[in-house]
């Protein structure tokens, strides 16, 4: 079986259920690919081969006895920020929890219930606090298309492993960029759900008011499959929304003809010209798929960007209130600097930003989305940067460098809206991506559009470009 690196999780699950391949074979192969991927990208924190193979044998036995869930025996791996019973997640940091977790994070538990295996814990930016994949504790993540370039972060390991074809999909999280930037940098898809769509119970917090757990995959159908499994209310997380979870897989085939996709041309013009051309190409693909091109305006973009920072910086500083006081030297320079910055935001400014959030969300829905179904924006403002270009440490260049990288990303977290990231056609070049932004809880619509897009621009498997 030579195409395992290209299969979706959904297709692999079917092959395993149909006994065309055993979970053990699929898992051994995935472990091999993940090891090869790590050599290129530094994507693995802990390979869990023994446990994975034991799980695969159990999955094969379950299938033999007629018991199978939607992901039984499928090898996955996730960003190492989720609690798992008996384990200490690395958080991508030198500082770690003192005791092992007593139960699985809810998204992990739900994937386990569906039969999925976890074969490794994957790289992330330290404490998930950074959009580039730099990590001064673990070593930086490297892009599978060009190892001198960033993977994007903070879900760096998941995106690299998915792009390489080591795993079909994995979990990540997004506070200001962290599912979208790595998906774009590595040329794969991601879904950042509406804030509250997925439980955060047992996930390492960064800025709880902005954090969203989501999925990175090569195939949009895997985003639909996995989001459908992990979404929904959770007694362990009161912020998890009660809004019903649709059948996202069924919605994938919903017609997209006539839907309106809007571009804020003034805002997008702040991107590098090459990136603007990529957005035009992606818009061409979407119109070919039947969407109609419209216009929209995010009139308060910079204000919202500042409000996002006024939420995020002190929120993250409070999360790290203990460690930054007691173990500051154990932080890498970028994260330490950003956590420290949060202590300089006045409480009143933070509260103004949190009180204003509903007002700005309502305004964006009434104005920006007045005549469109989804908005399109670049993910990155510039062509894929090198690791060296963004190796700015914790010094004065940090805010400007990171601010430019998350220019089109961070404000969406303040609004809590769902975003689908799609890779732009590479034409032999380096990857980049566009984001489709939807109204609250419109993940199903976004993924239906994504499915239509992938009929024109099929998923790719990443290998270093010569």
């Amino acid at each position, binding site marked *: 079986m030579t195409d395992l690196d290209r299969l979706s999780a959904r297709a692999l699950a079917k092959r395993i259920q149909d006994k065309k391949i055993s979970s053990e074979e699929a898992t051994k192969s995935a472990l091999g690919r993940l090891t090869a991927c790590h050599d290129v990208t530094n994507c693995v924190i802990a390979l869990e081969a023994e446990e994975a193979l034991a799980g695969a044998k159990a999955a094969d036995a379950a299938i033999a006895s007629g018991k199978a869930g939607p992901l039984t025996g499928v090898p996955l791996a996730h960003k190492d920020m989720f609690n798992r019973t008996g384990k200490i997640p690395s958080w991508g940091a030198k500082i770690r929890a003192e005791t092992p977790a007593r139960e699985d994070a809810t998204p992990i538990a739900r994937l386990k219930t569906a039969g999925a295996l976890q074969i490794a814990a994957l790289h992330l930016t330290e404490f998930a606090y950074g959009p580039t994949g730099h990590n001064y504790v673990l070593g930086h993540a490297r892009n599978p298309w060009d190892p001198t370039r960033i993977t994007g972060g903070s879900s760096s390991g998941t995106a690299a492993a998915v792009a390489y074809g080591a795993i079909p999909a994995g979990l990540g999280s997004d506070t200001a960029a962290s599912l979208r930037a790595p998906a774009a940098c590595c040329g794969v898809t991601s879904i950042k759900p509406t804030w509250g769509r997925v439980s955060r119970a047992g996930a390492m917090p960064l800025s709880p008011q902005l954090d969203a757990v989501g999925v990175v995959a090569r195939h949009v159908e895997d985003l639909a499959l996995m989001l459908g499994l992990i979404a929904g209310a959770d007694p362990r997380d009161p912020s998890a929304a009660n809004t019903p979870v649709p059948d996202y897989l069924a919605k994938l085939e919903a017609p997209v003809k006539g839907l309106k996709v809007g571009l804020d041309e003034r805002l997008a013009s702040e991107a590098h010209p090459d990136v603007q051309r990529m957005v035009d190409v992606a818009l061409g693909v979407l119109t070919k798929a039947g969407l109609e091109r419209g216009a929209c305006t995010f009139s308060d973009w910079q204000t919202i960007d500042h409000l996002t920072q*006024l939420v995020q910086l002190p929120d993250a500083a409070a999360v790290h209130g203990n460690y930054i006081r007691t173990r500051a030297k154990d932080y890498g320079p970028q994260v330490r600097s950003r956590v420290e910055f949060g202590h*300089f935001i006045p409480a009143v*400014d933070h509260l103004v930003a949190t009180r204003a*959030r509903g007002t700005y969300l*309502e305004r964006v829905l009434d104005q920006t989305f007045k005549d469109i179904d989804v908005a399109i924006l670049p993910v990155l403002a510039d062509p894929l940067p090198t690791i060296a270009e963004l190796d700015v440490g914790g010094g004065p260049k940090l805010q400007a460098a990171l601010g430019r990288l998350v220019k089109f990303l961070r404000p969406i977290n303040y609004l809590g809206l769902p975003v689908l990231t799609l890779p732009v056609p590479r034409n032999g070049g380096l990857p980049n991506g566009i984001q489709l932004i939807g109204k*609250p*809880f419109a993940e199903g*619509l976004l993924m239906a559009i994504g499915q239509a897009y992938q009929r024109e621009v099929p998923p790719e498997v990443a290998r270093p470009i010569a």
Partner: protein
Amino acid sequence: MSQRQDQTSGEPASYLEMTKEQRENAKAHAALLSGTAARVAVELPLTADVDDFRRVLAARAAR
């Protein structure tokens, strides 16, 4: 009290070990964001509430 705390007492977050340059950077960035907060604050109704965000998300959920 350490010499560092003596030197920075009265400063925001004096309990953090930061260089003078880092403190100036942090203050400058906070001041930039404060300008936006001030502008937003004067436009915000008295009744604006932190729970408005979740209420709007739920009320405007796509059907």
